[in-house]
């Protein structure tokens, strides 16, 4: 059996991802140095402002040169840089088990895991803290963010045991994720987001209001996008086995695609309103390419 890292990531993926750097859009909380700005004023080297001295301040913080010039006591304040606390949430509901005919046998869940592995590898390499949450109808696994290099092995092992199967309710899961993400951070939500779009958007807004930056990777299979079925088909639900419908796909295709557009539009508008990055990807895409494209776009946007 391959090592978890090599199992999920190929050598070209690793080489491509290792050169990426993900920057948080806003300030993040952290104690160790990193790439990201923090609202904690500390001993970093980047000057922020002066303020008048008040009793109780450390005397080492007094700017004696300015005292000599102005004959007043001012305190020098520096902006602190810290590491990023990232949580990767992987949807392991039954719907993620779908693997179409045009995706080389990779299910949406496998694609999500590989994408998450790339993210974790990239973030750990830039000394950010990375945590993992897997969920279906509730959070099944939660690993708090760590920035130690050997934490990556923990994450990969957790990913490898993740099995899709049950129903999902993303809105409830996001609300329960709040209990684990009490500090500022970045949440990578990798899911197909199947469910009530309005409820999902509402939960995203709640998570967003708790100082969490959210990047939502919505995973699609090509079959779910263009609905290519021609013959009479019995569609059996991946989440609830008793739920099945026998239909003529040709007659329903137009309505299906219309519903798909509507669903995506609603989710997209909700994400935009709450400043959530929504990245729609299909399982036929290269996950490393998707990730690099997204980071490049994010960097340009910043």
């Amino acid at each position, binding site marked *: 059996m391959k090592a978890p890292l090599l199992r999920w990531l190929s050598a070209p993926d690793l080489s491509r991802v290792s050169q990426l750097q993900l920057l948080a859009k806003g300030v993040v909380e952290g104690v160790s140095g990193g790439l990201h700005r923090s609202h904690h004023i500390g001993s970093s080297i980047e000057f922020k402002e002066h303020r008048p001295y008040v009793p109780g301040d450390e005397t080492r913080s007094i700017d004696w040169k300015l005292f000599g010039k102005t004959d007043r006591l001012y305190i020098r304040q520096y902006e602190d840089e810290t590491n990023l606390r990232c949580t990767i949430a992987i949807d392991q509901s*039954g*719907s*993620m*088990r*779908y693997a179409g005919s045009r995706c080389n046998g990779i299910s*949406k869940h496998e694609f999500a895991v590989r994408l998450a592995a790339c993210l974790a590898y990239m973030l750990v390499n830039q000394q950010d803290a990375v945590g993992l949450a897997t969920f279906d109808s509730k959070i099944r696994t939660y690993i708090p963010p760590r920035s130690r290099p050997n934490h990556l092995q923990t994450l990969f092992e957790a990913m490898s045991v993740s099995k899709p199967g049950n129903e999902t309710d993303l809105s409830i899961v996001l609300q329960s994720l709040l209990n684990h993400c009490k500090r500022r951070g970045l949440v990578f939500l990798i899911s*197909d987001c*199947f*469910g009530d779009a309005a409820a999902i958007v509402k939960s995203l807004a709640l998570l967003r209001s708790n100082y969490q930056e959210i990047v939502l990777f919505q995973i*699609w*299979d*090509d079959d*779910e*996008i*263009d609905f290519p*079925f*021609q*013959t*009479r*088909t*019995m*569609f*059996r*639900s*991946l*989440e*609830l086995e008793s*739920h099945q*419908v*026998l*239909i*003529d796909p*040709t*007659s*329903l*295709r*137009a*309505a*299906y*695609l*219309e*519903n*798909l*557009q509507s*669903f*995506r539009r609603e989710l*997209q508008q909700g*994400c*935009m309103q709450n400043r959530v*990055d*929504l*990245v*729609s990807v*299909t399982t036929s*895409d290269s996950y490393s390419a998707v990730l690099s*494209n*997204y980071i490049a*776009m994010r960097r340009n946007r910043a």
Partner: protein
Amino acid sequence: MTLLNGLLAFGAAAFTIPLIIHLLHRSRYQTVEWGAMHLLQSSRNHNSRRMQWQQLLLLLLRCALPILLALAMARPLLQSFLSEDGQSAMSMAIVLDDSMSMFTTDQPDAKDSVKTRFSVACQSAAEILQELPAGSNCIVLLGGAKPEALTGQVPDELASKLSEVGKRSIPAGEFNWEESIQTSLQWLATSQHPRRHLVLISDFQKHEWTSILSPQPERSDYGTIRPEVSFLSVSPNTESTTLSQPLNLSVHAVDVTPSILTVERPASILTTLGNHGATQSDGVVVAVFVDDLEIDRQEVFIAATSTTQIRSRWSPKQTGDHVIRVQILRDDQLIADNHFSTSAIVQDPIPILLVDGDRRSEIMQSETDFLRLAFSPLSLLSGEKGDVFLSKTITPEELSESTLKKYRTVCLCNVREVNDVQQKWLHDYVEQGNGLMIFLGDKVRTEQYQTWPTLSNNGLRIANYATRMKVRSEPAESPDSQLSSVDGALGAGGRIRTQQIEFLPLREMSSASLNSLASVRFEYRTPMELDPAALKIPSDASVAVRFEDDQAWVLESRIGKGRCLWITTACDDDDSNLPTRSIYVPLVQKLAAFVCNAAPPDTTVVASDRWMRTINASKWDPDGPTKQVRVTKPDGQVVTVPLAADGNMQFNDTRLLGPYFATLVGSKPNLSSNESRRNLSLEPMVVCARSQDWRSSQESNLTYLTPGEMAKLTANCNATSSVSARELLNTFRLNWHGREVWTWIWTVLVLCFLAEMGLEQSLSPRLKSKSVPDTRQSVRGSMS
């Protein structure tokens, strides 16, 4: 609903093909484990019901296509009860029996107020016609003798005509139901209406229908649609038998002898009477009328179901055509057969010229003495008038062209030789339509006759002559045979071959009787050998009568309009015992009448047969337009027919029984003293139409089909039977009527086909894929 091509309707079973395909298609599907059920479910909620209806509609359309196609090809006849939709137009052919039996009255005592069955039939037919729906077309055929169609554009017009026809009292010939039905079916086959009816109104005499009381093969001459056949009987619906028949006397036939009548020549009128009733009839008064003048009245007794004959004498007073009518002066159930009419033609004596080649002063020694006696027996023996022929004897030297013009026939009797000029006269004389008889006796110089020009060279000769010879004959059966032996070569055959006489005038003389040629013995003859090839004789020269050794006795040739007869024996008793036989007089008279076309034309014709008459109209307005003949039919109707250039008149419409009078139309010629009115055709010409021979005709036998036989007939013909027009109309109303609707079905079929194509296209995946957005590109491009 009736299917005209019912077998093709089984093609409707093909509707199961799309149904089976649909069911098989339903049972076969793939299974996909699917995640985005929420998208699918909402789509299904929106569309599933509509799509189900569309699929169901498509299935119905596909099932309907073969059903409609099969129905259209099966030519359905949409039917409904008359009370609902009985006013659709129809075609109806009505065959009316107008034979003699239909003129029976059921209550003979009150004849003024009682109608004949024919009038009842006409009234019933009119009633049926008046009840026909608007737009219907119909035909009425009078079925007696030769069927006659009453013309009319609309049923009401025909109904009014029928009321007029119903007043007629003149019957037609025997009911020709077979030709009537055939004509009706042919007319119905060309009809445009799908509702077709054939109504036959008759009294259903037993003898007419006995032939089809046994099961008959189905007719196939009615075209595509078999018409409904209905019988309407106007006869009493009882188990009638011959024994129960009421009084019914009839005049079967009237025969006038002799066949050639001349003024003052006594004629015999033989009347055959019959009694079809079950009781004998005493004191039946029978009157004989000639030209409506009663010439005889007799009282006869006729036993039950038997016949009797009466004979009346009539001595014609003037030439011309006469109508002889025999009338039973007693009313019975069928009055129409109580009288019978025939016609008799009284001619002028036929002038005949006898050229005697062996004239002697002794009595009965001249060559022509026997002929003179045979042609004019009455005047020569008893000094009475009435001879058919008026003869004159001359010598060969007296034969001239001017003399010939006065006679219709010339007899050269043992004339030694005829010079070339006389031959030419005689040739022209015959060519103009007169007759020539040449008797070859012992005076004849055959060498001179052999030099005559042949027929092909405008001459008279048709054969080669041999030397007069003696023939060997068996002893004569008759004791008065006193033939003596004379010189000459011995020959064979002194008897006439009577078995094979096809010569029309002498055909009836071949039978063994007093008037038979079998008793005649010949001793001498002048052989004539007919050699058409060598002499280039046309085919209208032939040997008419032969001896038993196959040698010719009588040879016949046609020259122009006339005839020439060569008799190889003399006309006196030198060569045979013929002049001493009783056959001699009729034989020479028949030969003379035949050779000059003196036989009277037909005096009666069978109803519907053609009446042909040669009319001398040469002096009627010779420079005028085409001559016409006005024919007055027995019912008084007048018809004008053209007269052919050769003087022949042809009249075909003789279906009514009774006398037909024909008169020339135009300016009449002036009557000169030496010509009779008859020769100038000033008098009307008459022919009487009669039924078939009374021995085979049973029109007067009022025996009808019994109810059981009628039911059998109805079943055999797959028909319905009624006894009144009202009952027949009620039967119509109870039956189905219909309209052919295949054109509608074709229209629906085409519409269904177009709808199926449209629906199929609207449900086509390819078409749908063009109408939906490319969500794949939009997903890939979205990264917010």
